[in-house]
Structures are given as structure tokens and as C-alpha cells.
């Protein structure tokens, strides 16, 4: 299939990525090659085959319903680029 600008723009937006004009050209070519490569799967008849969803042999792995702590607030915030000491900070969401 042909990979056009609209497809790249849509996918970049969904993936929260951005590409400048020259990057876009090269990623377009790469993606076209990659999609062509995986299209080979279409040659195989898989009618009636259940998709494999889980790799682990374990099912219903449950534990007792006992509340447990996780990491402390200090630890959780320790690697954040910007915090106010209590919360993670993001750029202002609601603008005037």
C-alpha cells in the first residue's frame, strides 16, 4: 500500500510524535517498506484460527485482597522533571 502524508500525520498524532519535512520523507519510505514486508502474512490462510492472546500458561492469578503500599510519594516524584513537591506538573491545560 502507498504511505502518504495524511497517513503519516494521522499515525504521528496517535503516537504523539512529530516529524519535520525531511524526516517525514524518510519515515514515509521506511514505513512503506515495513508495511510491504509484513503484508506477506496476507498470503497465509488463517480461516477459523483463534488469535493467540496470552503466552503465559497461568490463568486467574489472584492474591488475597489485602491492601498493600506501593512506592512513597518522595520516591515517585524523585525522577520527575518538574514537581511542586506534591504533584507532577504539566504545562497549563486551560488557557485564557
Amino acid at each position, binding site marked *: 500500500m502507498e504511505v502518504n502524508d495524511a*497517513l*503519516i500525520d*494521522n*499515525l*504521528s498524532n*496517535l*503516537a*504523539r*510524535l*512529530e*516529524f519535520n519535512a525531511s524526516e517525514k520523507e524518510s*519515515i514515509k519510505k*521506511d*514505513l512503506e*517498506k*515495513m*508495511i510491504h*514486508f*509484513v*503484508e*506477506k*502474512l*496476507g*498470503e*497465509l490462510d*488463517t480461516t477459523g*484460527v*483463534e*488469535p*493467540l*492472546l*496470552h*503466552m*503465559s*500458561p*497461568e490463568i486467574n*492469578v489472584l*492474591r488475597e485482597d489485602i491492601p498493600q503500599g506501593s*512506592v512513597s510519594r518522595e*520516591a*515517585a516524584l*524523585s*525522577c*520527575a*522533571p*518538574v514537581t511542586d513537591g506534591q504533584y*507532577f*506538573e*504539566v*504545562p497549563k*491545560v486551560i*488557557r485564557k
Partner: protein
Amino acid sequence: MAIEQQQPLNAYIRVYSKEALAKARLLDQQRKEGKPMGKLHGVVIGLKDVIAYKDHPLTAASHILQDYVSIYNATAVDKMLAEEAILIGHLNCDEFAMGSSNENSAYGKVLNARCNSRVPGGSSGGSAVAVQAGLCMVSLGSDTGGSVRQPADFCGILGLKPTYGRVSRYGLIAYASSFDQIGIFAHTIGDVALLLEVIAGVDEFDSTVKKEKAPVWKEAPDQKYRIAYFKEALDHPGLDPEIREAILTRTEQWRQAGHTIEAIDFELLGYIVPAYYVLTTAEASSNLARFDGVRYGYRTKDKDLELTEFYKRTRSEGFGREVKRRILLGTFVLSAGYYDAYFTKAQQVRQLLVERTNLIFKNFDIIILPTAPTTAWRIGEKMDDPIAMYLADIYTVYANLTGIPGISIPLFGHTNGMPFGVQAMTSHFNEVSLLQFSHQMMQQ
């Protein structure tokens, strides 16, 4: 020390020498006092830089994690520390374990110690070279599509990928969660077995680990095996004829020694790399969504961005090219209109592969394949063509798609001067047989 002299190999991203020396002194002291020794007492171990070690940086060889410091230990790390291992440092790799040559690292490429103009393989290139060059005794890597077995093959050492669900993935940075396993590099089967025994087993933080005791291998009397190989794999046009010849000659020797060898048809071979790339990129696009510049990791310096633009800028500046490529392909195969044709289709192919594999193991103990179609290639040789790089994984992704354990056994030398191995696989959770077989084949 050796690691400093071998710095040009670029195997380590960080070395914890002071800490390691202090730990060694403490262990010496305790031993003298007669304290019982742990199973890994004083064993010097390197970690791929995707395995969390509390209070130490962890980068996945990516800019996006450049200032990250782990706030907990991976379960495998906890278990090794409990057995008195010395963790010497974090090892270089391809960014987020995506690559087959260790050329995609924010910390630069790693060189093969056997020939410095060649790649060490990937993605766990640093982990392989560290063991190859004696910069640690054993090391851990991670194997999503061959990232332990292929670099072991390129560096002339042992590399084991355990069964999916054998070793806890807690604290392993996720690439493709239904494929990832922590794997082991070493020179001897005894070392592989001991480390596996320590890091395997149930973990309340990873529900996919099988509820079974860790496998314990002890040298056993020689056994006769029923061995299969895939005709299509040995006849593949991309396979180096010298590798093909070496493996066929060796299997003939095994036959004469009383093992059963049979060439079987495996008509699905051509579909395994495409199925692998659909499923792993899909899982990666989801797993890597967590890197948002808010909770940890790199955050764009650009100010006054709207929130969505802020995420896009941060991620685009933080991730390298191969990672972005794979996220985009994964987003494509999961997107509306393409989901069934690509993602569901690949899951169906995965089902067929598992069914076929289970049938094979009704009649055979071991499957033999090459580990890689060529020996280590020259640095830069495959950087321009992602597909050429992906096809280098043709023999290794099979074990990750089906979940079975696989090992690369270093048995051969090529006329180009590079080592190579053969890959052996058994049925699920049958590592003890796999280790016994490998040990036997290395003795001959």
C-alpha cells in the same frame, strides 16, 4: 582494571567500581568469619541497561531516560543480591532493546572484541562483549526476538533465552511484553544453569511467571536425543553456506554417535519475521506510551507548548530513529481499519506456530537451527535498510513467538575469523534438558 583498558569496546554505560570493591571486601570478611556463602558469592555480574537496580541510573540506552534513577530492584536483581552477587555495572545495548547490532544506542556503538570493525550483535551487545572480553563473569541481557542468542553467537559465547514465564519481568523495561524474557550470557553451561536457578521462579509482581520451582541442572550421564531441524531454514538463500555446512556436518556426527536426526518441513518459516514485527511493534507502541516527560525521564526545554504539542516534542526529541520507526509501525497495525488485517492476522499466525511447535515436540526432544544467517557483519553495513536488519532475526524470533526456550551454543569458527554457534530449543519449561543437551554437545 580490565574494564578501563577495554573502554574502547564501549560495553559498559556505567561501572560501579567503588561499590563493587566495597562489596567484595565485605564478602571476603564474612567468608573469613565463617558465614555460609550464597550461591553467587562474589560472582561479578553485569546488567543490560534495561534491568532496574535500585538507586542506580537506568537508561535503556535512550536519551529519553537520561536522568532516570531506579526506585526499585528488578526481581532478578533482588534474587542475585540475596545470593551475594557483585553487580559491577550497566551494559550498553540498542535503544529500548530494538536492534540487532548495538549500533542504535544513545551511548554509541559497541565493538566486537574479536574484531573491532565488526558489530557484537544486538540488542544485548554490551552484555555479550563484557563476557566475551572477560569484563565480568556472567551477564544478564533481555531477549525479545534474539537479543541474547544472536549477540552470543556473534561473540562466541553461550546465550540462553528461558521459556516465556520462567523469569520474572518485573523491573525489566518493557519492549514487547508477550515476548520479553531476561536471558543469560556465560562461558559454561554450569554458569548458565546456576544463574538461571537463582533468577527463575514465581514472583508476586509478575503474574505471567509459571508457578513452578526454578530448574536445577546437574551434569547427568550422556543421553541420546531425537533432534529435528527445519529443511527450509537450512536451505534458506540468505544463510551463509559455510554455516549451513558446519551445522549439517555436525548433525551427521551426532547421528553417528547414536542420536536421531531428521529434517522436517516447516512451511511457516517465511511468515515468522513479519508476524514478529507486527506483534512486537504493536506492543512497543503501547508500552512506550508511558514516556511523556511528566513523571520521569527527558522533558523538552521548549516553553509555552500546548499539552499535546508538549508530549509530541518531548517524545520526538527523546526517542531515537529506530524506536520512532517501530512505534509508528505498531500504531499503524493497531489503528482503525488495519487492526484485523495486520494485528489479528499476526496473532492467528502465532497460534499456528505454537500448535505446529507442540506437535513437533511430540516426536522430538530438540529443534536445531542456525542462530543467525551470517557471522557478525561490519559496522555500518546494514544501517540503511531496516528490512535487511530484521531478516537477520529469522532464526531467533521463532522461540519468542512460541515462548519456548532457546540457547546459542558456540561450536564453530568461520574462515573469516569470526565465531558462530548453533541454536537449540526444547519444549516449554524444559530448560534442564536444553542445558544437558548443550553441555553434552560442548564436550565433544
